[in-house]
């Protein structure tokens, strides 16, 4: 047995991801494991709760993306109670959800994952953060990032009750209509968000695409996996975050299957490993073949790049243009370069902003008809949304009083877990040679999973872009021979 490298958040809490790299006797990487050391049991203590409380209970899985869980839960209640919300309720939900997508994607690009590119993957660690981004693109831009997020989060609060842990979702609708005054503010916020999205795309072009070194990094084999892709699409196979059918494409881009969320159990399954609390999703249609990519392996990806791959385009003009530019620049679809996820995230940001503007202009949006009272006996319900970090499925069964008897949740990061594990292993093998690893090199390993924006907030409370790391190199007897701290 050779040396081990353990990359562990310095805080060493149960809630944080951990990378364990084993070296062989020649100092080459034998295998790298990404472990998720956390489990909270929401599905178990959901039993006995009132179904209508689930959107508020499950939002506490994650305070970074509470709207995703709240909305998945609310849609599950529609299905559970066999009730269709009035058109205005559906449109308001989608408009609010789009506002959430914009502010969350902005958070990731400017605060978490983006600094690696905007400031540079090997820049001094003290600059590789949002302040470094502001230093590079200007203070006014920094203010606009904070300003846009503040405005959108204020709009979400006013429509949904609270931005952190929304309350407005009910089976058959929402708790309150949107006033004309609030509609006007949504329209203004959306217009600002569209401009902001265009600007963010330009930043990406100027900083990343014009730099040969970055483009080489994005397209390098170390960050490439040929897997299946899953995402929600509308009736024209365009990306949608709030509703639609789930579409899977194979590593060559051909459609494998398209199915409604109600059939998720026929297509998505979870594999258990003894060394991580997080389960690994795979496609039932293909099967679990271990941690490997290719057409014979059921490993798939979700989140921005996967959504673009699984679709046939975007629903709005500016985003469609950006989507075409992305596809043609990177050699056509499907795009297998994990780091291109950052670019795809910005395409989605502008798409969500444009969609938000369309909905704010919809004559239905201020209709007072936002509730339909359920009249049927609740039985079983399944709901899906695209969380910023990928497909999120809630599934509840109840007794006739609407008390939960079973709940099952497939969260975005679980869907991505196997491919993230592949990415970390591959990046480590390509980049780490021997125990003498430096901080910049470790950051490049970390970038392999940061691109997914993995919501370890959902499982671990950590915002990965800011995660301090510690590396320990031990000899086969377990003695510490080298320690490297990135903090």
């Amino acid at each position: 047995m050779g040396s081990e490298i353990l990359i562990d958040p310095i805080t060493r809490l149960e809630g944080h991801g951990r990378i364990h790299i084993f070296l062989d006797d020649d100092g080459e990487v034998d295998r790298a494991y990404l472990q998720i050391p956390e489990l909270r049991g929401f599905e178990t203590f959901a039993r006995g709760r009132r179904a209508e409380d689930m959107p508020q209970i499950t939002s506490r899985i994650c305070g970074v993306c509470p709207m995703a869980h709240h909305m998945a839960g609310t849609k599950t209640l529609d299905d559970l109670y066999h009730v269709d919300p009035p058109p205005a309720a559906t449109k308001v939900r989608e408009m609010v959800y789009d506002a959430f997508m914009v502010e969350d994607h902005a958070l990731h690009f400017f605060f978490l994952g983006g600094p690696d590119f905007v400031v540079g993957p090997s820049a001094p660690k003290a600059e590789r953060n949002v302040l470094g981004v502001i230093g590079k693109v200007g203070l006014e831009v920094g203010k606009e990032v904070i300003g846009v997020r503040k405005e959108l989060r204020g709009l979400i609060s006013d429509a949904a009750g609270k931005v952190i842990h929304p309350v407005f979702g009910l089976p058959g609708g929402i708790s309150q209509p949107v006033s004309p005054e609030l509609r006007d503010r949504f329209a203004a916020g959306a217009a600002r968000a569209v401009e902001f999205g265009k600007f963010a795309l330009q930043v990406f072009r100027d900083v990343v695409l014009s730099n040969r070194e970055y483009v080489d990094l994005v397209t390098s084999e170390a960050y490439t996996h040929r897997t299946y892709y899953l995402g929600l699409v509308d009736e024209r196979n365009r990306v949608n975050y709030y509703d639609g059918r789930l579409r899977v494409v194979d590593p060559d881009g051909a459609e494998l299957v398209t199915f409604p969320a109600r059939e998720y159990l026929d297509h998505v399954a979870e594999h258990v490993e003894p060394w991580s609390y997080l389960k690994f999703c795979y496609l039932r249609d293909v099967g679990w073949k271990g941690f490997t990519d290719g057409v014979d392996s059921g490993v798939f990806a979700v989140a921005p790049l996967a959504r673009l791959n699984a679709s046939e385009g975007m629903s709005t003009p500016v985003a469609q243009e950006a989507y075409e530019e992305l596809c043609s620049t990177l050699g056509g679809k499907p795009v297998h370069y994990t780091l291109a996820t950052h670019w795809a995230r910005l395409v989605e940001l502008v798409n969500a902003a444009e969609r938000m503007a369309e909905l704010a202009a919809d004559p239905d949006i201020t209709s007072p008809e936002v509730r339909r009272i359920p009249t049927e006996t609740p039985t079983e319900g399944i709901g899906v949304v695209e969380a910023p970090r990928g497909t999120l499925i809630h599934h509840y069964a109840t007794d006739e009083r609407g008390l939960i008897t079973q709940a099952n949740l497939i969260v975005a990061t679980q869907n991505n877990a196997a491919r993230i594990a592949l990415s970390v292993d591959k990046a480590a093998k390509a980049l780490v040679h021997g125990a003498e690893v430096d901080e910049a090199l470790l950051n490049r390993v970390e970038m392999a999973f940061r691109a997914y924006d993995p919501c370890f907030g959902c499982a671990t409370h950590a915002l990965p872009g800011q995660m301090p790391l510690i590396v320990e190199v031990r000899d086969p007897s377990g003695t510490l021979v080298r320690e490297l701290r990135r903090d």
Partner: protein
Amino acid sequence: MTKPKVAFYWCASCGGCEEAVVDLAEDVLAVVDAVDIAFWPVALDFKVSDVEALADGELAASFVNGAIRTSEQREMAELLRRKSAVVVAFGACAWLGGIPGLANLSSRESILEFVYRGSPSTSDGDGVRPQEETDVPEGRLRLPHFDETVRTLDQVVDVDYYLPGCPPPVDLIRSAVTALVEGRLPEKGSVLAPDVALCAECPRAQTKPTDLKVTQFRRPHEVIADPETCLLAQGLVCLGPATRSGCGAPCTAANMPCTGCMGPTSRVIDYGAKALSAIASLVAPSDEEAVGEAVDRLVDPVGTFYRYSLPASLLHRRVERDAAGSRGGGQGWARRS
């Protein structure tokens, strides 16, 4: 004058408390101006050894969010306690246990059983479960152990102040930091929020009848609530009368009942018991049968009244489950092979 040093830390939480601090937006800069943030893992790259290197009591204050479920969390809470003049339990989870505290209704075993075997999407393997130690071909991997029970911060260390809410309202965070900087902190043990019930700041307060009586409780999905009338007067279980104010009543403003995330006022020992009695006292009928009918409508008393406070309650946790509950499994759900 040197700026007071403060720390922000998370235990078993969702990250919402951290987002609430970020939602101070440009005011974050004012906070950074007034205090020296010595430790804040989510945003700044200081490490545990930096905290260990501080003199005991050198931190003016530590703001700790989240409940306690692992030995590591307990150790961090103890470390910050030792280094801090003041420890603030930040948010509902640290103060009362919060929604993750509902896990005290199930056993660790039933959680593992469902997640790794009973769940309908989990593939039928050979009963593999995560292990605290696993030997893989390349070496040995370890996972941490979980406590059976979720605890509040003050069940683990001495706590000086409490900031309520899920998450704490931005205004309360701002005034708590200001009070700390200006040395205007109240008596130890205080909750840093107004000490009156939510009804005082509810926009519907004027419509709350003085002799409020409810003949039939209704659930939120069963009624389209009038947007201006007291929700209790409409038969909805709104916990405003039992809950501390300071949040600005955003839930009732959004036409949804208060669920009690701000916790009790200072005169209450057990929040859930107080909330239950506040609601029960509104029951209009006086004959036993009618009272029974009205109360039967309160279908999930623990989840309704103790939603944020089970670990802090006199009930604390459920120690036994009936056979059906302890199995976790997928009864009634078809499994795909």
